[in-house]
């Protein structure tokens, strides 16, 4: 068993810092609840600072919604819904096009705020989160006057008021995934951003104002888990859409029992990334890195179970470990940073607990040696080998920059191991053989399968899970179905 010291590598490259300027960011000192088209002081909720996880410094004070606030938000959404649904599809679409354009115009500001509030590298916020958020609004803006084409020609009507709860890993992008299809279909929304990352959703509320979106079509009500639990238990909602952990998803499904409220869940994962011996190995290593270290591994579909064919396992692990040593961990606002800050102290503790369990169960840990900032929440990229399928690090979602390696001999064994999970969100396949890729992709129980790529998203491509990774799809025509009643 290798000790941590023996297996640590040292960063040999020196980069000058390349910080993204935050001068153009105009944050307020405090944000109210966005209800009925305006920012309001909470009626019975408190105020909580949102903290930068890279510095532990407060960024702005955020109003949290109390019970009366939630009632007011749902009432505002309910009051606005008939008028919003009565607009022609084209007119509704034009509001969404405006929002898409404003996101593009304010892209740099949104990217910086997203990285400050959540800890993700600004390169990712700038190149992935913000452009994809704009693309989602653009895509669904175009659906508003074509809805029946998306559902096999059936007549459609909106469900009503949608309660939407989004996670902290892609705060703006997940808000876009939720709001764009809901609004396109003529619903109004009450959206609760995550406790640790409310800021980009509040900037999106400003964008709704700037777009002159009718008051009450979108409500943004920050809060913690209890706020979300209260929201889904509220009267006056017709639809719940949740992205987050499987445990909370199950609680929501149970809470809605017998109420006839439509539900879609996008939950956790323990996705298999399968490397076959005939893959282009250097390309595969880049894909493995993107699969697990993108956004610090805070990705529901992260390729956290790396399955490597035995004949190339040593080679791939050596290449991967070498590549991991060149990952740059640190300041999220530095444009050269690959791995930013862990989103919160709570999440850091969860990662540490599972990594300790991995060591305790006998897997071999290697963690990249890199200098981490004194303040803030950090976890260096980590690789586990000698992992058994029953180990907690092979079964449970770690949601951090930690990859567990398992090996296989045959294609059938790879498929069996990949499918041996209560989850079924995503999978990766690395091979240059086309027929094999199609065969394996069709055998995997996962909502998304990527061949020779990973963590690729597009507003036209449906995303969502099998089994305990949830139900319902987001993206494309399939993303309309959860927000429409067909007749």
């Amino acid at each position, binding site marked *: 068993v290798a000790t941590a010291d023996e297996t640590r590598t040292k960063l040999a490259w020196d980069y000058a810092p390349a910080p993204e300027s935050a001068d153009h960011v105009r944050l307020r000192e405090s944000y109210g609840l966005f209800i009925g088209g305006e920012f309001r002081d909470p009626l019975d909720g408190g105020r909580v600072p949102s903290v930068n996880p890279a510095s532990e410094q407060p960024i702005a004070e955020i109003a949290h919604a109390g019970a009366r606030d939630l009632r007011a938000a749902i009432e505002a959404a309910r009051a606005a819904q008939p008028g919003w649904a009565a607009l022609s599809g084209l007119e509704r679409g034009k509001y969404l096009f405006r929002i898409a354009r404003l996101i593009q115009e304010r892209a740099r500001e949104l990217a910086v705020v997203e990285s400050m509030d959540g800890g993700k590298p600004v390169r990712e916020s700038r190149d992935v989160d913000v452009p994809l958020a704009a693309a989602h609004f653009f895509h669904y803006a175009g659906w508003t006057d074509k809805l029946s084409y998306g559902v096999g020609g059936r007549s459609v009507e909106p469900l009503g008021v949608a309660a939407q709860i989004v996670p902290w890993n892609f705060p703006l992008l997940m808000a876009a995934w939720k709001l764009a299809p809901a609004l396109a279909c003529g619903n109004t929304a009450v959206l609760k951003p995550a406790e640790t990352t409310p800021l980009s959703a509040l900037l999106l509320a400003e964008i709704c104002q700037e777009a002159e979106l009718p008051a009450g079509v979108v409500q943004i009500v920050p809060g913690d888990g209890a706020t979300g639990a209260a929201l889904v238990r509220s009267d006056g909602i017709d639809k719940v859409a949740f992205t987050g952990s499987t445990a909370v998803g199950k609680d929501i*499904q149970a809470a809605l029992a017998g109420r006839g409220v439509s539900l879609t869940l996008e939950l956790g994962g323990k996705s298999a990334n399968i490397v076959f011996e005939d893959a282009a190995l250097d390309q595969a290593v880049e894909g493995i890195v993107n699969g697990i270290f993108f956004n610090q591994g805070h990705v529901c579909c992260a390729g956290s179970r790396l399955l490597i064919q035995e004949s190339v396992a040593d080679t791939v692990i050596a290449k991967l470990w070498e590549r991991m040593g060149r990952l740059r961990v640190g300041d999220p606002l530095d444009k050269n940073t690959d791995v930013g800050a862990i989103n919160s102290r709570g999440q850091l503790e969860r990662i540490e607990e599972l990594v300790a369990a991995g060591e305790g169960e006998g897997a071999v840990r290697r963690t990249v040696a890199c200098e981490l900032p004194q303040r803030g929440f950090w976890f260096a990229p980590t690789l586990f080998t000698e992992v058994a399928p029953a180990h907690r690090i092979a079964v449970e979602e770690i949601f951090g920059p930690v990859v567990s390696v398992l090996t296989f001999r045959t294609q059938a064994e790879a498929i069996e191991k990949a499918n041996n999970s209560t989850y079924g969100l995503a999978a990766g396949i690395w091979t240059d053989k086309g027929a094999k890729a*199609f065969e394996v992709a069709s055998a995997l129980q996962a909502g998304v399968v990527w*061949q020779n790529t990973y963590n690729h998203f597009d507003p*036209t*491509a449906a995303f969502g899970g099998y*089994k305990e990774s949830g139900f319902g799809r987001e993206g494309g025509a399939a993303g309309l179905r959860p927000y429409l009643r*067909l007749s």
Partner: protein
Amino acid sequence: MSRLTVRKTYKLFIGGAFVRSESGRYDRAGDFNVPRASRKDVRDAVLAARKAGAGWGSRTAYNRGQVLYRAAEALESRAADFAVPHGEIEASVDVLVHYAGWTDKLAPVLGGVNPVAAPFLSFSLPEPTGVVGVVAPHEPELLGLVAELAPALAAANTVVAIVSESSPLAGLDLAEVLGVSDVPAGVVNLLSGRRGELARALGGHHDLNAIVDAAGDRELAAEIDRLAAESVTRVRHSRPTTGYEEAVRDALDRLEALTELKTAWHPIGA
């Protein structure tokens, strides 16, 4: 000289075999005894359905369509064997014909190529969700069951169904129709017994992918919802289906609820 009729012994239909309840219990239905299935029978049936899933799912859509159409033919020819109104038999046959035609239409209607902004062939296709539990209504005892079975099978799922509690004979007789229709063993499993007991066993089964509750009982519906949440089981509640139009009007809802859309990304170029 008078002749003594040979009475039918009603049995459960599990894994393609006609079996008694492992519990040895029975209920009275008209002139017959019918098995009162147990939680263990539910577990055995789910296991049989799970085992049959891979084979049924890998059949071509064309083949599954022909098997369902064959079931329609068999039901039509045995209409006289069922003690239900003739109109209900006709509607049930027509529902099977309708869904037989869906097997190779699901993919183009629910899926397609995604025009992604990157050099990939990305497409989304519906796949079966897996093992589907069906809770049939008291009545109509045949159509109420067939209207839930047909879409589940058309979407390539395997099924464990609880037949009508108050009138179980037609549901159990359906096993004989399916048994001569090339429906592979285990693809449809039929249980009679106490609906509340069996529906709860199904709802709480952690290896069930979806449950279609057509019982029309609010209290039971809420209980099924709660149990299903333990393993994120998909739930669809449906009112008892009383006519052909009702069974096909919302076909897309019935089918879509029992599929999983898979999106695949394959590279174009190097």
